[in-house]
């Protein structure tokens, strides 16, 4: 079986001078990338099968490191760049005690219902299946330049490296959308076809702040994939209006399932909640209770070091998701709500209990609940409802900074409100349904 690094070697031979990656002022051809990966791999002095943590950065160096770890026979575990050092060290210690099955390429961290980080094992086979799904489902091509603006430790962005390297296309990396001018600079890159991946907040910011400018690239933007969280219908319609010829995809994907299905909503119907037909390597089955379950080569291999947890999700070559869904008469997947308490913000899963546990240790907080609340830009955001000790007043900045020291940044609520009490059920548990 060919792995991603084999495709890199092939493309270095076939298209040595073709630009593989652009990042700021730096470019790297396929021959150079291959050389850098091989040199770095030779310097990695770790036993085969070791899981190596990488602090993710939006750089060519990160891609080199990621592929070099694979080439050295090790497993890459990219972590968010601002992961607290304590957590980074703790994971490093834990990972050194695990052995991984043969064929594992990556361990990607995601959050579970309890808030405990779970290391999702992704195989080399899965990487290639994801690549082939994206090529067939969305039309990645050799002459495409794909702009990555999201964090490369997240499956939404990381997975786009796969088809680009397989096809010998070009990756254009930018460090987020904070400076939108850099995104437009990327769109000015001399080529015929470009594509990118957006979370809903990106779409909202571009349509609100740069609609005309975005529309001026309508002929050049081949496709845009939207994922991470449901896109508001108004934003879907606005993107269709601004980019009438561009394929605009909503995709069903997760770290556990890989890339499963996709729907081009710029089809004149613009169906809300539709995630399209499954891609070649994937199958979707809806369980009798309405749960989305997935099969195929894009599935994870399990959670590292946790066979019990794995068995709750992955059984009989099927990953059972917590999303509810249905399949229509055209064979297209439609997503409904969730079966658990996990809140998805900006493409990340957050367990409210983890936020509440951290907040409860803040001096003066008597009780709290973390909920999902509407947000004008992101669609939804975490909100912490706080009951303070008598006579104390909530200082949301202090609470936010306190949480930032203890949690990954995406788990820190944006919205805060002091309340008299939080709703609980008759047996004293937080009544989450009350706040939905």
């Amino acid at each position: 079986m060919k792995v991603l690094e084999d495709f890199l070697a092939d493309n270095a031979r076939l298209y040595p001078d073709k630009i593989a990656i652009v990042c700021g002022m730096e470019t790297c051809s396929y021959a150079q990338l291959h050389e850098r990966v091989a040199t770095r791999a030779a310097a990695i002095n770790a036993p085969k099968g070791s899981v190596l943590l990488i602090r993710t950065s939006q750089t060519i160096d990160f891609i080199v490191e990621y592929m070099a770890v694979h080439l050295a026979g090790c497993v890459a575990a990219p972590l968010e760049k601002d992961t607290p050092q304590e957590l980074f060290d703790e994971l490093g210690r834990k990972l050194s005690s695990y052995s991984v099955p043969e064929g594992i390429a990556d361990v990607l961290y995601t959050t579970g219902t309890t808030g405990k980080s779970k290391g999702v094992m992704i195989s080399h086979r899965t990487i290639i299946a994801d690549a082939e799904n994206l090529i067939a489902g969305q039309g990645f091509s050799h002459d495409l330049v794909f702009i990555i603006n999201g964090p490369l430790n997240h499956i939404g962005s990381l997975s786009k490296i796969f088809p680009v390297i397989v096809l010998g296309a070009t990756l254009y990396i930018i460090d987020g959308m904070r400076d939108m001018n850099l995104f437009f600079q990327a769109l000015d890159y001399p080529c015929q076809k470009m594509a990118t991946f957006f979370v809903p907040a990106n779409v909202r910011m571009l349509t609100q702040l740069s609609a005309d400018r975005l529309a001026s690239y309508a002929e050049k933007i081949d496709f845009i994939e939207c994922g991470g969280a449901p896109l508001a219908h108004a934003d879907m319609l606005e993107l269709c209006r601004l980019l009438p010829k561009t394929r605009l995809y909503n995709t069903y994907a997760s770290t556990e399932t890989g890339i499963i299905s996709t729907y081009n909503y710029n089809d004149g119907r613009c169906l809300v909640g539709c995630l399209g037909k499954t891609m070649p390597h994937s199958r979707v089955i809806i369980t009798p209770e309405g749960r989305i379950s997935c099969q195929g080569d894009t599935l994870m291999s399990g959670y590292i070091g946790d066979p019990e947890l794995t068995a709750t999700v992955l059984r009989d070559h099927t990953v059972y998701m917590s999303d509810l869904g249905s399949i229509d008469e055209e064979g297209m997947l439609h997503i409904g709500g969730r079966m658990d308490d996990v809140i998805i913000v900006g493409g990340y899963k957050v367990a409210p209990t983890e936020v509440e546990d951290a907040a409860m240790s803040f001096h003066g907080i008597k009780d709290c609940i973390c909920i999902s609340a509407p947000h004008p830009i992101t669609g939804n955001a975490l909100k912490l409802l706080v009951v303070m000790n008598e006579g104390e007043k909530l200082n949301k900045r202090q609470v936010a900074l306190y949480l930032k020291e203890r949690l990954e940044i995406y788990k820190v609520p944006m919205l805060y409100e002091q309340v008299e009490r939080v709703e609980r059920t008759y047996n004293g548990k937080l009544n989450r349904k009350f706040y939905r």
Partner: protein
Amino acid sequence: MKEEIRTLLEDLLPLVDFDSDFLFSELNSLDVTTILMSLADKYGIKLEAIDATPKNLKTLDSIVAMVERKLSEK
């Protein structure tokens, strides 16, 4: 106006230190969008992506200067 803008933005973005001399480097894309959209709404000015430059968002003072410039252009 500076304190008014500070109150508005600190309420929306509690994690951001608006006293920083390197404010832009602390912001993410969502923060930038929140700043531009909330200021555009509050002062009735047009702010676009092209305004989201490191220079305009370097400090709270530079944000105030951007708003004042936009108000004078109205």
